[in-house]
């Protein structure tokens, strides 16, 4: 695609001037730190003063660290599970909401499902602890039924399912909202034509709703793919000695290296790997989805 010609730049200079602050903002607060971070990943661990160039030493160190490799595994298990569950459950929820006859009921369910997304991860963790704690709601109900209490929060085998469940509870409403908006945009004439052709409700969903949602699905999948490697907050607030090794993700590793240990070279190398991984995943997803095709 040819770039703007000098004449058109002159012609639309007021628009370019309007764009300038935004461009400056991104250069200063996104691209510069981004480039600086990559540069630091090739430098020694020094917080102040000149940082010696160390080539790929930080990457070699990080990629050989068993904690990093464990963090990769945790991230992929949690991130990919989230991707599948967020997508499938939010789509299912949106379809269910669309089927509700009453507008009031639709809005109520939609709001109720969306509400957790407004809470911070700390609040979500607080709710989760209240539910799954040793003296939490689940154990209280289990106790009434004669069951022995289960220590959900300190059970390593349950650590990942609990974290994934937390994310699902918080985020499904948000993605369902995106699908719901897209469903309301579908031309009613398509449903009417399907009805005239004798299509059942399920058939209408399969032949009209789902194909019409394809562009939204692509956006949602791409957003979810871009989030696969960037889980942090939920692990950070829920980690304890019993579950830490099962849920410490790549960004938790980066946080520990950079903030706790001041090893900025290792931390930025780890962060660059996350970024590169995200770019690769997003690129693959775009290709698989044929994202740019209608």
């Amino acid at each position, binding site marked *: 695609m040819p770039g703007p010609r000098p004449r058109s730049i002159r012609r639309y200079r007021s628009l370019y001037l309007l764009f300038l602050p935004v461009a400056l903002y991104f250069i200063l607060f996104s691209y510069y730190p981004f480039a600086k971070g990559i540069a630091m990943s090739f430098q020694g661990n020094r917080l102040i003063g000149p940082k010696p160039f160390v080539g790929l030493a930080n990457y070699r160190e990080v990629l050989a660290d*068993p904690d990093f490799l464990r963090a990769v595994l945790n991230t992929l298990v949690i991130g990919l599970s989230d991707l599948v569950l967020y997508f499938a459950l939010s789509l299912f929820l949106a379809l269910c909401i669309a089927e509700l006859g009453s507008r009031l009921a639709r809005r109520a369910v939609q709001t109720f499902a969306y509400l957790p997304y407004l809470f911070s991860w700390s609040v979500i963790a607080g709710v989760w602890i209240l539910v799954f*704690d040793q003296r939490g709601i689940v154990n209280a109900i289990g106790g009434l039924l004669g069951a022995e209490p289960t220590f959900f929060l300190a059970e390593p085998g349950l650590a990942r399912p609990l974290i994934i469940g937390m994310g699902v509870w918080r985020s499904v409403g948000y993605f369902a909202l995106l699908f719901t908006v897209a469903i309301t945009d579908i031309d009613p004439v398509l449903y009417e034509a399907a009805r005239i052709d004798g299509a059942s409700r399920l058939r209408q969903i399969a032949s009209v709703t789902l194909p019409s949602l394809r562009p939204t699905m692509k956006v949602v999948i791409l957003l979810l793919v871009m989030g696969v490697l960037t889980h942090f907050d939920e692990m950070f607030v829920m980690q304890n*000695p019993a579950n830490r090794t099962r849920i410490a993700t790549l960004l938790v590793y980066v946080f520990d290296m950079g903030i706790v*240990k001041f090893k900025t070279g290792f931390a930025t190398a780890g962060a660059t790997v996350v970024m590169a991984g995200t770019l690769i995943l997003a690129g693959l997803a775009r290709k698989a989805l044929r994202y740019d095709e209608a």
Partner: protein
Amino acid sequence: MKRFVAIALALALAAGAASFAAPKQVRVLASVTGGKNDEENKLFEQALRKATGLEVVWERVPANYDQVLMQKLGAGERYDLVYMNQFQMYSLAEQGAIQDLGARIKRSAVYQKNVPQAELDKIALDGRYYAGFNKQEVFPLVNANKALTDKMGIDLGKLATLEDYYQMLKKAKAYMEAAGRKPYYPFFAYMTDIWDLQPWFSSAGLRRGVFVGAGGKRYAPYVDPKAKPVWEWLAKLYAEGLMDPESFTKKTGDMRNKMWQSQDILLDSDWAAWTGLYNNNARTAGTYPDKVNVVGLPGVKGPEGTYLIEQGQASLFAIPANAANPDGGFALLEFLATPEGGLLLTAGIEGYDYTREGGKIAYTEVGKAHAKDHGAPLPISSAFDMAQLGPMNPGFLESLAVGKRKDVSVAPMGFANGKLDARQYYDIMSKWMTDCIMGKLPAEAAIKGAADELRAKKIID
């Protein structure tokens, strides 16, 4: 033109003279030390200026301090004094990010007069000092709610062995559950960072951390075979419902609430200052001393006849390598080590937190709310007179006195001569100890697992 040059020269000279006369600015980045809010922080700066003649800018970051510290130093912001803990000091000193203060400290009459050499020795790295003190570090010790144990007929003074504590906890559980509080878990051990299990490992004569032995070999006493009975004892407490399962998931704040607010536990390990704070909180709530009367105990005596208690890692101020005014920074550091500095860091600001009545300190309502703590509940100056602060919280001084007993040894954890990766050590130890205590692994296997992992991560040899 000549006239213009003359005026410009005169103005430049005047500006130069003004900057020479004005006190040079000292920029400080601190965590909790300072005024409790913006208003008091301004007064805190003024008090420092009055005392030192330095134009102090005191930036207080009470939340997410580590993150802010890393970001500010990494971004090249210049400070003359920066608060940090001992581990951070080691990391930053190794990177050359903070200045060697050895020569200044050796020259300092204030430090010689006020700071015990033993305290300085504890923060030395390869024989050098990279920081000065914010306060005198105290220690955690066993805290027990005597109001409850008295009712149960338990004599806390007779608890000497792990078995004694086990029997005491069994009795407490039975008593409380008979009173209708079922299930009752009387003991809480905060398992994150395996903090603070030292009073129990004292029974085997072992200390937390990594030490460097003869020939430079690094070893971790908690994974020594001698530690096995302590690991087993903790596992037994958990198995028999004597140890609160929330020890693995809750924070110290929750532990403290369980101790004084709900009395869900009656035995834990906490800072000496918290003995007093438990009681003071209970007094405010009207439950002291009938329901809550916490006392500090030294724990369990070791084979050598000594109680091993762990001193908290030092809270320090260092001068960054890029400081604009390191002399000012050190002058301020010296002031914090004087009795006058100690008074500011405890009682607060005269005229705001307290007034003088007949030479004695009389706290204002604000001062009472600030509880004699503006960053240093116990100042580093050995010349500081604690008595001038007036009555302390009940039990605090008694807990402090435990550390001065002849049969009690108070020392910091093993930092492997400043080379310990504490985060990894804590993570590895808490993981294996949790597996052992929760009954997933026998003690021997857990100790071996921890030792193997510490060795694999090159934390021990």
